[in-house]
């Protein structure tokens, strides 16, 4: 996506959005993360860290809450600046307050909620998030999230039967959203590439067998979008 001036978007922290890594721009509506929104991924992994890395590298602070086993080293390789990272591994029972506090200080907060929040509390947190202008990345469920990303297929390369080492992973990422971001996109990414970064990947040549059938039937236009 290009602005009238011809410069690519999402280079600096904007007023209304946070930049993402160049490899992820194609996948996201507007090529950025809109401030004040909630983005979900089903499980914690490299994807939420990659989503936060672009903003962190551009100077944003990142909070990482409720994920004891977060691989900080992988995050650093993606570009997440560890000088601007706050970790809060144990959330305890007052976790909504903890997450709200973190969201007041950090532009991006990754959280794996220990439990589903009641709708009322959820709306209150969303309102606070809009005021603070941050982005909440939820590893788990969050009804009414603006954007949902999920890895549908994943292929590691470099490892044979008793030889080699893990080198890179090609993953298909499906992005769905509500409102203006409603169009479903999908794309293949190196998640990560051999140097630990994220970049767009060519779809694999052979058909991968474990494609979930229901995703296809629910979104018949998936094939068209996948070409881009």
């Amino acid at each position, binding site marked *: 996506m290009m602005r009238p001036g011809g410069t690519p978007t999402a280079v600096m922290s904007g007023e209304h959005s946070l930049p993402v890594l160049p490899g992820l721009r194609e996948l996201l509506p507007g090529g950025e993360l809109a401030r004040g929104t909630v983005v979900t991924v089903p*499980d*914690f*992994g*490299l994807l939420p*860290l990659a989503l936060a890395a672009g903003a962190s590298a551009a100077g944003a*602070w990142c*909070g990482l809450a409720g994920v*004891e*086993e*977060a*691989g*900080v*080293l*992988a*995050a*650093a*390789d993606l570009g997440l*600046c*560890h*000088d*601007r*990272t*706050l*970790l*809060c*591994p*144990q959330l*305890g029972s*007052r976790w909504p*307050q*903890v997450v709200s*506090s*973190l*969201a*007041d*200080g*950090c532009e991006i907060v990754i959280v794996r909620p220990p439990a589903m929040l009641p709708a009322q509390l959820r709306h209150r947190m969303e309102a606070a998030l809009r005021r603070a202008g941050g982005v909440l990345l939820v590893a788990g469920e969050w009804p009414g999230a603006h954007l949902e990303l999920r890895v549908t*297929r*994943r*292929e*590691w390369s*470099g*490892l*044979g*039967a*008793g*030889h*080699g*080492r*893990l*080198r*890179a*992973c090609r993953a298909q990422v499906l992005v769905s959203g509500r409102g203006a971001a409603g169009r479903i996109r999908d794309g293949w990414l190196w998640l*990560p590439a*051999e140097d*630990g970064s994220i970049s767009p990947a060519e779809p694999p040549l052979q058909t991968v067998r*474990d494609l979930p059938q229901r995703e296809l039937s629910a979104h018949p236009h998936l094939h068209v979008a996948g070409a881009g």
Partner: protein
Amino acid sequence: MSRATASGRPGAPGKARGGGEAQRVMVVSSPDAGAEESGQLAALVTGYCPTVESVRLGVCAFAARGPARYFGGEEALGSRIVEAAAAAGLGCRVGVADGLFAALLAAGPADGADPVTVVPAGGTPRFLAHQPVSVLEDTDLAGLLRRLGIRTLGDFAALPADAVASRFGEAGEAAYRLARGEQPRPLAVSAPPDDLAVSAGFDPPQPLAEPVVFAAKALAEQLHAGLAARGVSCVRIDVQVSWADGHHSSRLWRHDGLLTAVQVADRVRWQLDAATPGDADGAAGGGITLLRLVPDQLVRAAGQQLALWGEAVVPGKVARAAMRVQALLGQDAVLRPVRSGGRSMCDQIHLSPFGADPEPRLPAGRPWPGRIPGPAPAVVYPEPRPARVTDLAGEPVTVSGRCTVSGAPAELAVDGGPPLAVTGWAGPWPLAERWWDPSAAVREARFQLVTADGRAWLAAVRDGAWQVEAGYC
């Protein structure tokens, strides 16, 4: 020539400005003392001199001239204090010299049986000349001096002052003044403005120590900001606490412009522990009503430069957010990662609580052969998860002492979960670390596995059992 330059600088700090002539200082040191013993020791010494400064835990100092004259000499005063401390069950050593630095060294461990060491007036430079440069607190500087062939403080003090200043900078200049038996920094001539003291009142009185210590951290930050705004730092900090029943506790702690807010809060905690023995919280006196931090002996700030690499400046709103979470969950709940050395995934990141100095445990940036190359795992389990790996025949896969695998892994079950078919694997990569220390020794054989669901794992065999250390997903 040098004379002309010296007189040409009217503001230059010299002996005449009170910076050079060091006063007689007596140090009472009980290195093994905890917070409570250290409080007892300070109370005991206060019986001989009303203004006592706590240098650190178990070490206090005071100006010796007046008390020594009253008690019949420095030697006699020192012996009295040692006897009184022994009667109270505290072992201590006493050192007297010109200036705090030399007195601290004199009170340090010595081979002589006499617990009192008196360096005669004017004899301090000679006393210091025999000390090795390693007594300087700045270990970097001490190492550098040793490599340059300067082994004692006497050698260091013999260097020309201007050469030291230009070669070793502000820190070297301060150490040079110490080595010559002078004050490390000239005292600031201006009187301390009253508004630099900060205080927090508690209404209703706070019965618990923890919230007071927490408030102390914020107060210390306020104090440091006030000092920094005037370009000064304080040599000592006076911590004053008042309880609801009317009793007070006031102690001077060494600061030297080096303490962080958290370290000041630590001193407040020690003081509270000592003030109410056996009852760490302040409930004894009906709760704490007032905490006041007063900077003492202002000196011009030499400028603590922020690290060029590593620590980023924390903006106010982030610090506030982190401190709010710390107030909810405790000091250790908010962590900052620091890249560290080491071979395992857990070693390569060190987590330090927010507000503390982040310091890598093992040096990063050096080769650590034996690290797993390639992309780092996104999930690193704080405690490895038990796993079961079987070969095609359903037998558990084992690794011999010579690193041969009993069979190709075919199935992986993590933490008692359903078995996943293994589609690719590599290993074993042996790792034997710290074999010289049985409590920290690690001996394991590591594998990478890819399972049919597309996930990849870092697994290891340790003491014959499989465990999953990290996941790539």
